C-alpha cells in the first residue's frame, strides 16, 4: 500500500515536473522549428552567416590572382568613359608581355568603344587566354562579337532578397536555351585546365561542377538558411566562401600597368581580372561578409570584379589546396542539431537546479554552441545558428525565471514551515504546562494549597515541560499523524473526526481542573462530521480547539454543574460547541487565553467558518466553531 502510493507520488511529481518544465521547452523547440520552416528566420540566419564569415581569421593574399582595378583616377587620366577599346587593348597587350595564365575582362564590350576597336577585336580573336563577359538574364548584354564562345562567361550576380550577395551562379540556360558558364567557371576552368584539373561533373552530386577533388556544392531551394529560394531548378550555383582578411587580392590600377610599374611576378602565371572599381560606374554589389580593397571603399559594398575574384579564388584554392568550400548539412541533420540543442537547454533546468547554476550553464552552453558553429563555418559548414540560439535563450530564460519563482516559493514555504513549528511549540506549551502553571498560580494566590501539593504540581509541570520537546518533535518532524495531548496520549488523526474529538473530550475532562470537579454531568453529542477538505493539520487544530475550549471551562466556569459538548452537523454546518452553566470570566476583562482565541480565529479563517464565544443566560459560557465543508480554502 505504502510503496504503491510512493511510486504513484513519484510518477505524479515527475509528470508535474515535465508538464511545467519540459512541455513549454518542447513547445519552444516546435515553435522555432515551425518559424524556420515558414522562412521566418531566413533573414536572421543570413545575417548570422555574414557576421560569422566576417569574424573568420584573415587568410593570406591569394597569389594566383591579380586585379587590375580601373579606378576614378584612371578614368580621369583616360579622359572618357566607357574606357575606349584602344586603352583596353593596350592594357591586355602590356599584361600579356608578362605571360599571365588567363585574363578575365570583366567589362562589357558588346558595342565598339572607339578609338581602337579594331585593335581590341583583333586581340579577342588572337588571344586564347582571354575571357570576356556577357549578361544572360534581362536585360541581356551580348558578349564581344569577336570573342569565341568558349572564351565567354556570364557576369550575372544574383543577390538574395535582402540585397546581399552570398551565392555565385556557375551555370545556367540563357535566353537561347543554351547552357552557359559563368566568368568564374570559364576563368578557373582555363587556369585549372592548364594544370590538368579540367571541369567535370560532380561525383556525389552529378549536377554539380567539379575540378579535381573540388566539387562545388549546389544550392537547393532549402539549403542551409535558405527557405524556398526562388530559382530555376536547372541553375547551378554555390555559396561564395569569401576570402577573409583585409587584403585578399593584389590590386593595381590601369595607370600603373600602362606605366610599367607593375612587377612582372604579379602577372606571370596568374589570373588577371580587369574591372572597374570607380564609384561613379556603380559596378557594385552588397555584402557585409568582406570589405572592398579598392581605393576609398564604402562599407558593405564590394566591386563586381572583386566578387569575381572571390568566386574564382575559392574554386582555384579548393582545387589546388583543398581550401573548404561553403556547404551545409541535409535538412534532417539540421533539425536534429536544432532539437539536440533545445533538449540540452531543457536539461539545464532539469539537472542544474538553482537559478545561478542555470545561468552559468546557459552561458557555457551558448559559448560552446557559438564556438562550435564558428569552427564549423571555418571548416566550411554553414549550420543553423539562429534557431538553436533562440531556443537556448528562450528556454534558458524561461527556466531561470521559473526557478527564481520556485526559489521565492521555497522561501515562502520555509517561512510557513517555521511559523508552523512556532505555532506547534506554542500550542504544546499552552495547552499543557501553561495550563498547569496558571492553575498553580491561582491556587497559590488564594493560598489554599499546601506545600506538598505545590511540590507535586511543580513536579507535574517539570514533567510536562520536558515532554514538550518530544511532543513537538513527533508532530512536526516525523510527519506524525497523531494528535499528542500528553506524552503518553496520542490520538490517531486518521480516525474519523468525531472519534478523535471524543477522545480529546474524554482525555481532557480527566485533567486536574477545579471546575471539572463540580460538574455533575455532561450532555454530549458526538456524531460524524463532514470532513471533506479537511487536512490532517485541520483535524489536529480542531482537536486542539476542543481541548482549549474544555480547559477554559475547567479554569473559568466557577460552579458549573452541567457541561454540554456537541460535535455534529446542524443545518449544513459542522458544529463544535462547548457550553457550561458556570460563572465564567468577566467579559469586560481581556481574556488570558489569547493564544487559544488565536487558534480559533486561525481555524475560522482557514475553514471559512464562524467562531463565537459568548455568555448565555442565565449564566454560563458558550464557545462554538462551525464551518461548511464546501467553504474550506483549498490552500491556506
Amino acid at each position: 500500500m505504502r510503496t504503491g502510493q510512493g511510486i504513484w507520488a513519484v510518477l505524479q511529481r515527475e509528470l508535474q515536473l515535465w508538464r511545467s518544465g519540459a512541455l513549454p521547452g518542447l513547445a519552444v523547440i516546435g515553435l522555432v522549428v515551425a518559424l524556420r520552416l515558414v522562412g521566418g528566420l531566413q533573414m536572421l540566419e543570413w545575417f548570422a552567416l555574414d557576421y560569422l564569415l566576417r569574424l573568420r581569421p584573415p587568410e593570406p593574399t591569394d597569389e594566383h590572382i591579380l586585379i587590375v582595378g580601373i579606378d576614378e583616377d584612371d578614368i580621369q587620366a583616360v579622359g572618357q568613359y566607357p574606357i575606349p577599346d584602344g586603352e583596353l587593348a593596350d592594357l591586355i597587350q602590356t599584361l600579356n608581355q608578362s605571360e599571365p595564365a588567363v585574363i578575365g575582362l570583366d567589362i562589357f564590350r558588346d558595342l565598339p568603344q572607339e578609338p581602337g576597336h579594331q585593335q581590341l577585336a583583333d586581340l579577342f580573336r588572337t588571344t586564347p587566354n582571354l575571357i570576356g563577359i556577357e549578361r544572360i538574364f534581362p536585360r541581356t548584354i551580348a558578349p564581344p562579337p569577336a570573342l569565341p564562345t568558349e572564351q565567354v562567361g556570364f557576369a550575372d550576380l544574383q543577390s538574395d532578397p535582402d540585397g546581399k550577395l552570398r551565392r555565385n551562379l556557375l551555370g545556367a540556360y540563357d535566353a537561347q536555351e543554351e547552357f552557359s558558364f559563368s566568368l568564374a567557371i570559364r576563368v578557373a576552368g582555363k587556369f585549372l585546365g592548364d594544370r590538368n584539373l579540367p571541369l567535370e561533373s560532380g561525383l556525389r552530386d552529378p549536377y554539380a561542377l567539379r575540378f579535381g577533388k573540388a566539387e562545388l556544392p549546389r544550392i537547393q531551394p532549402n539549403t542551409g538558411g535558405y527557405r524556398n529560394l526562388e530559382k530555376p531548378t536547372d541553375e547551378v550555383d554555390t555559396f561564395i566562401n569569401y576570402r577573409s582578411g583585409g587584403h585578399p587580392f593584389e590590386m593595381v590600377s590601369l595607370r600603373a600597368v600602362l606605366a610599367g610599374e607593375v612587377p612582372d611576378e604579379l602577372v606571370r602565371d596568374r589570373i588577371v581580372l580587369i574591372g572597374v572599381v570607380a564609384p561613379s560606374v556603380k559596378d557594385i554589389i552588397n555584402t557585409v561578409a568582406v570589405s572592398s580593397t579598392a581605393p576609398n571603399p564604402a562599407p558593405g559594398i564590394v566591386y563586381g570584379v572583386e566578387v569575381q575574384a572571390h568566386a574564382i579564388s575559392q574554386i582555384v584554392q579548393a582545387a589546388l589546396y583543398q581550401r573548404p568550400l561553403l556547404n551545409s548539412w541535409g535538412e534532417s541533420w539540421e533539425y536534429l542539431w536544432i532539437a539536440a540543442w533545445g533538449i540540452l537547454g531543457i536539461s539545464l533546468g532539469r539537472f542544474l537546479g538553482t537559478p545561478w547554476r542555470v545561468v552559468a550553464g546557459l552561458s557555457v552552453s551558448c559559448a560552446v554552441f557559438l564556438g562550435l558553429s564558428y569552427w564549423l563555418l571555418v571548416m566550411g559548414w554553414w549550420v543553423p545558428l539562429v534557431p538553436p540560439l533562440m531556443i537556448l535563450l528562450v528556454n534558458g530564460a524561461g527556466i531561470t525565471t521559473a526557478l527564481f519563482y520556485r526559489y521565492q516559493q521555497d522561501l515562502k514555504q520555509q517561512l510557513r514551515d517555521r511559523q508552523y513549528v512556532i505555532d506547534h511549540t506554542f500550542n504544546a506549551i499552552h495547552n499543557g504546562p501553561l495550563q498547569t502553571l496558571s492553575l498553580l498560580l491561582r491556587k497559590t494566590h488564594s493560598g489554599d494549597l499546601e506545600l506538598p501539593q505545590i511540590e507535586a504540581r511543580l513536579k507535574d509541570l517539570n514533567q510536562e515541560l520536558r515532554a514538550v520537546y518530544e511532543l513537538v518533535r513527533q508532530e512536526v518532524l516525523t510527519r506524525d499523524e497523531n494528535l499528542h495531548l500528553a506524552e503518553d496520549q496520542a490520538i490517531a488523526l486518521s480516525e474519523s473526526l468525531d472519534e478523535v474529538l471524543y477522545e480529546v473530550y474524554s482525555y481532557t475532562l480527566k485533567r486536574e481542573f477545579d471546575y471539572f470537579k463540580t460538574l455533575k454531568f455532561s450532555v454530549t453529542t458526538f456524531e460524524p462530521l463532514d470532513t471533506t477538505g479537511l487536512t490532517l493539520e485541520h483535524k489536529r487544530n480542531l482537536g486542539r480547539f476542543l481541548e482549549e475550549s474544555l480547559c477554559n471551562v475547567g479554569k473559568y466556569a466557577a460552579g458549573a454543574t452541567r457541561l454540554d459538548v456537541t460535535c455534529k452537523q446542524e443545518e449544513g454546518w459542522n458544529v463544535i460547541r462547548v457550553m457550561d452553566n458556570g460563572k465564567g470570566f468577566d467579559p469586560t476583562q481581556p481574556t488570558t487565553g489569547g493564544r487559544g482565541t488565536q487558534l480559533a480565529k486561525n481555524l475560522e479563517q482557514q475553514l471559512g467558518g464562524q467562531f463565537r464565544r459568548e455568555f448565555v443566560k442565565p449564566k454560563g459560557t458558550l464557545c462554538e466553531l462551525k464551518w461548511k465543508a464546501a467553504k474550506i480554502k483549498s490552500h491556506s
Partner: protein
Amino acid sequence: MAGLKIVVVDDHELVLDSTVTVLQRQYPDAKISTAQATATALTLIEQTQPDLVVVDLALPEQSGQVSRTETGLQLLRTLLQRFPTLNIVVQSANAKSLVRLKPSINTHEGGFTIAEKSLPLKEMLTKVDWAIQGVVYTPREMRTGLEIKPEWLEVLRLAFQEGLQDKAIAERMRVAERTVRHYWTQVQDALGVYPDAGKNNRIQTEIRAREEGLID
C-alpha cells in the same frame, strides 16, 4: 433459549475453546461458530446472522498475522455500523482503548457489554446474558464522569416529570418505541443501573437520576 446463534471471535485457540465450552454449557441449544481473525469473523457474521457476537479486542486481520487492538477496534466499528441491533460482548484486557468508540456504542441499539478478561466466569456469563437482553454495560474507566446524551435527558424528563409511558414518549420525541427502549438501556448504563433480581429498573433509574441532578 432454543435456536440461539452465537459467534465467538478470539485469536487464541485455547481461550476460544474454553469460551465455547462455557457458553455451550450455559446455552446447550445454541449453535456456536468461531473465527480467529477479523476477515473470517465478518464473513461468518454476515452468513449466520447471529444473535450474539463475543469478540476479543486484540485480533489479526487474517489468521497468522500479528494481533492488534486497532484491528479489533476496526471490526467493532464495522459491526456497530452494519449491524445496529446486533448484541455484542467485548472481551478485553484493556477497556480504555474502547473510549473512542463510545459515541458509536451510545447510538448502538443492540446489547453491548464489556467483559474484562480477568472477570470470574460467573460475571462473564452475566455480561453475556445482559448483552442477549439488550443491556448496555461499559466499565467505569471508560467513562468521563456522568455523560449522557440530550435524547436520554429528554426521556428521563418525560418519564419522571410528566409521567409518560414509552409509547407516549416515542410520540412526543417522534421516534420509534424501540428507540426509546434503547435510550433507556443507554441511560441506565450511564447511571450504573443494571438488571438486578428483585429490583425495578425504572425506579432505580429514577432514584439515580435524581441523585445526579438530571431531573429536579
